């Protein structure tokens, strides 16, 4: 960690007691004293989610014909939203796993929330390919299972890889998230005064009692899960990238797709963490002590770096089209600049490349309001990026007679907006019912911080071993 930045990762003056109290106070607030803001936010999100249920019901009744898709644009909103949501999910795993392995202590106060975001985003993402199937009730055909038709999935197809990647990612994220929650659920169990709250947290807490024998197993699994999740994130979005790269469509058939998709996913994911964290911080003042400006600034830096990689990806695509000189690739690129979908392209360049350049300035990185708007712009930009890649590339393929313009119908839009409602509903429930910040890791952090104070700032790693040798008490 950098030495020059003295901004604390936890505001001073916190002890074990205050950490326990302040984080658990939010889920343990009695039902009757639920803040009005929460009720209002939940209500609106829930209404938007109902929109999703309505759109999906109509979809199941009438089929995908109600969407604007046509031939050649057979993949449109469903796949755009799939890629967008799964990309948002990746930041959560990155924060919880990669930053854990790199011992970035500042991650502690945001990892739980980011993991929850991952889980909900991936759940949304997984819905779309299934909705996009002509007969969604037969989705289990995608899995290899002994069946009376003697058929197997085509294991050489990236679309089948995707099924495995998403299923694995969802399972591992859920396990990792729940595992991280168990010690905190025990704390919640012990702090709850309501009989039912105590029981429910107790059952979910599995009887965790903070025994060192448990911690011993727990820690080794937790670190290994993090070590597994790290390459998993990269593989998942690489496979998503290969869904496209394996196709022969100009604009898709490119080896840069897997890494460029991963960078784009992290970029949009961090933007989404900021989009959610900044209002949460504004509405729940006690969180400001744990999610400090240092966190916002660090996330902004990651976003800037990822944004530059994404920009490099865009440049490479353009360069390659002209360097290779293939007539179809050149045409596709020129169409991107000046064709029907050009406004979407230039808007995404504005949102993903130009606006994030503001993040070079420290004052902007530390200004929550501006950061919030930048993160919103990036979310929009990354959605448009997938729109352009999918719709624009497909709409003008090799044969002019098959060209078709795609425009979304109201059902496309309702389904998309509806998943945002579903996502926010889950986020509201999560913040209300579970500790949104990892309590036990905060306790650990507080111990480290106070310890660093005692030893005049000499800190990190090496002092770990000195504990055992610090003299035994006199007897």
């Amino acid at each position, binding site marked *: 960690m950098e030495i020059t930045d003295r901004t604390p990762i936890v505001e001073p003056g916190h002890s*074990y*007691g205050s950490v*326990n109290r302040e984080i658990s106070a939010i889920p343990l607030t009695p039902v009757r004293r639920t803040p009005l803001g929460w009720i209002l936010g939940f209500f609106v999100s829930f209404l938007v989610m109902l929109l999703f249920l309505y759109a999906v019901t109509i979809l199941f009744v009438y089929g995908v014909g109600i969407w604007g898709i046509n031939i050649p644009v057979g993949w449109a909103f469903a796949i755009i939203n799939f890629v967008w949501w799964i990309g948002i999910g990746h930041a959560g795993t990155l924060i919880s796993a990669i930053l854990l392995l790199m011992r970035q202590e500042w991650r502690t106060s945001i990892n739980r929330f980011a993991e929850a975001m991952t889980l909900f985003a991936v759940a949304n993402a997984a819905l779309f390919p299934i909705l996009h199937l002509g007969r969604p009730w037969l989705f289990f055909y995608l899995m290899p299972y002994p069946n009376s038709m*003697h*058929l*197997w*999935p085509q*294991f*050489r197809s990236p679309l*089948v*890889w995707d099924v*495995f990647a998403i*299923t*694995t990612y969802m*399972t*591992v994220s859920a*396990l990792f998230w729940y*595992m991280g929650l168990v*010690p905190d659920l*025990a*704390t919640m*169990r*012990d*702090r709850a005064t309501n009989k039912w709250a105590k029981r429910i947290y*107790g*059952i979910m807490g*599995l*009887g*965790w*009692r*903070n*025994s*060192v*024998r448990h*911690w*011993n*197993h*727990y*820690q*080794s*699994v937790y670190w*290994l*899960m993090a070590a*597994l999740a790290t*390459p998993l994130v990269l*593989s998942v979005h690489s*496979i998503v990238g*290969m869904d496209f790269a394996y196709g022969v469509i100009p604009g898709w058939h490119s080896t840069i797709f897997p890494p460029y998709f991963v960078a784009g996913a992290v970029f949009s994911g961090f933007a989404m963490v900021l989009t959610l964290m900044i209002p949460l911080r504004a509405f729940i003042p006690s969180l400001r002590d744990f999610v400090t400006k240092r966190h916002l600034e660090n996330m902004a830096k990651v976003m800037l770096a990822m944004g530059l990689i994404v920009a490099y990806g865009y440049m490479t695509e353009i360069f390659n089209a002209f360097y290779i000189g293939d007539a179809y690739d050149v045409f596709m690129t020129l169409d991107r600049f000046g064709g029907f979908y050009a406004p979407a392209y230039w808007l995404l360049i504005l949102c993903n490349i130009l606006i994030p350049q503001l993040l070079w300035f420290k004052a902007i990185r530390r200004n929550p309001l501006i950061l919030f708007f930048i993160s919103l712009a990036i979310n929009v930009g990354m959605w448009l990026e997938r729109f352009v890649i999918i719709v624009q590339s497909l709409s003008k393929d090799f044969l002019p007679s098959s060209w078709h313009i795609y425009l979304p119908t109201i059902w496309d839009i309702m389904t998309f907006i509806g998943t945002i409602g579903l996502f926010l509903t889950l986020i509201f429930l999560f913040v209300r019912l579970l500790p949104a910040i990892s309590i*036990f890791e905060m*306790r*650990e952090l507080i111990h480290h911080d106070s310890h660093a104070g005692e030893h005049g700032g000499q800190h990190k790693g090496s002092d*770990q*071993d000195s*504990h*055992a040798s*610090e*003299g*035994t*008490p006199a*007897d």
Partner: protein
Amino acid sequence: MRRAQKPIEQDARELYGLLAKFNTQDELIAASDRTYQEGYRKFDAYSPYPVADLARSMHLKSSPLPFVMLAGGIMGGVGGFLMMTYASVIDYPLNIGGRPLFSWPTYIPITFELTVLLSALAGILGLFFFARFPQPYHPVFNSEDFNEHGSQDAFYLSIEAGDPQFDLERTRSFLENLGSAQVSEIEA
């Protein structure tokens, strides 16, 4: 921890052991170190956050779970690869543009995913097995003080009555001499 069930009427308030409370992590580390040196083996320490030195001072063996996860990962990877080979080469060969049936590089992504999936599942199931989850009852929960502070801000050490070295008076004074803030008896 699992002991023969005795009829309830015979000994309604059987002793599980002694529970000593400490205020700091360092005191607990020193105490568990001394407890081990003294010859006690059936004892446990409780800390509201993971402390690597505690496992060391208790002379705990390192967790076998990494090997469980490795085994799960190997099963997933090898099993997945063989499944795809069987499906694509033997059971359901599809000629796609004359490409070889055993086109193993295309099996790698799913092999990797299944390695991770089974390894993670093995880790969690192994954790449940070794930590004996779910375990809704444990004698230490009989201590009010433990319920109030054990998962929040205090450190505890328990010595079980089942330990051959255990002697109520002697063990109690041993724990008190370790600098414990409070020593109490725990019912089973």
